[in-house]
């Protein structure tokens, strides 16, 4: 895992601004400034700096059930080391793959796939993993219930290297 970003100095006012926008990302800078008793310019400048340094990013979140994505599964793949990068690059591009990691142990690639139904997920897994070069095994573990999911802390720097439609203010 990459080491800490050296540009991540965050003071108390930054933290307060972040907390406000974590609670409601549609508030205006003016509303946040008023709540924290600082100038609108201070909020705007700090937010800009935090976004530029990729410490924070705005995100639209849609409720899974309302979105019609009723199927979720964890996949775990054991792939030959010399084919791993190729597999990861291809998996990164799949829109339905929402989480993808390199790991240590019985499998070296893992992730999460979110689709409308089981059939669509299995089709993607078949296409991109089961039939891919160097793949020794694929384990698909169907999600029954998501009890907790922290979506306020994710890796932002790495994520930005993909073609993202998310905010680039």
């Amino acid at each position, binding site marked *: 895992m990459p080491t800490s970003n050296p540009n991540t100095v965050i003071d108390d006012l930054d933290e307060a601004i972040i907390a406000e926008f974590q609670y409601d990302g549609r508030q205006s800078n003016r509303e946040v400034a008023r709540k924290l008793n600082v100038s609108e310019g201070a909020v705007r400048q700090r937010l800009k700096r935090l976004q530029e340094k990729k410490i924070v990013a705005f995100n639209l979140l849609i409720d899974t059930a309302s979105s019609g994505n009723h199927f979720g599964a964890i996949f775990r793949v054991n792939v030959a080391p010399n084919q791993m990068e190729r597999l990861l690059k291809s998996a990164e591009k799949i829109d339905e793959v929402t989480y993808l990691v390199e790991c240590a142990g019985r499998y070296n690639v893992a992730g999460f796939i979110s689709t409308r139904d089981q059939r669509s997920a299995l089709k993607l897994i078949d296409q991109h993993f089961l039939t891919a070069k160097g793949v020794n095994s694929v384990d698909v573990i169907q999600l029954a219930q998501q*009890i907790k999911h922290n979506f306020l802390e994710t890796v932002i720097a790495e994520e930005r290297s993909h073609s993202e439609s998310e905010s680039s203010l």
Partner: protein
Amino acid sequence: MLLLRTEPTQRVYMSDLDNISTSILRVLARDPRTPNNAIAKEVGVAEATVAARLRQMRENKIMRVALRKDFHAAGYDFQTTVDIATSGRSVHSVAEELAALDAVKAVMIVMRKPEIIITINTKDRQELAHIISDHVSTIRGVAEIETHAVLRIRKSRVRYANLKSKYGD
């Protein structure tokens, strides 16, 4: 079912929203901070309609815009996936107790044994060891623990989340 196209690789499926709401979400998927008047112009409705729809969707926990903080900036450097097998207690109760732990960022109940998969974020290995031995393993009903270290997070696009759960806000 409506199919929203926000960019070539980014689709948003919405099953129970009308055209106006889905159009608003399409704008927000591209830029979550678009002001209401700009959304109104693009969608072709009054600004008050946009404000009302956004309030309604937020209240019904269909969507929210949130600021995300970078994993490293939040003080973490280590992510671990842990498979947990339970015995002698309902899987759901064990999962709820795990979810209450702060370091546990995701809890999923899956359709196989081990029945629970969790994600833990820590600043280092030592903190992980502490959480596993002093917290996770002391929960009643936790029978087996298998940890898998994440070496690198390649993608963590948070688009869908269970906003209706008690951890959704």
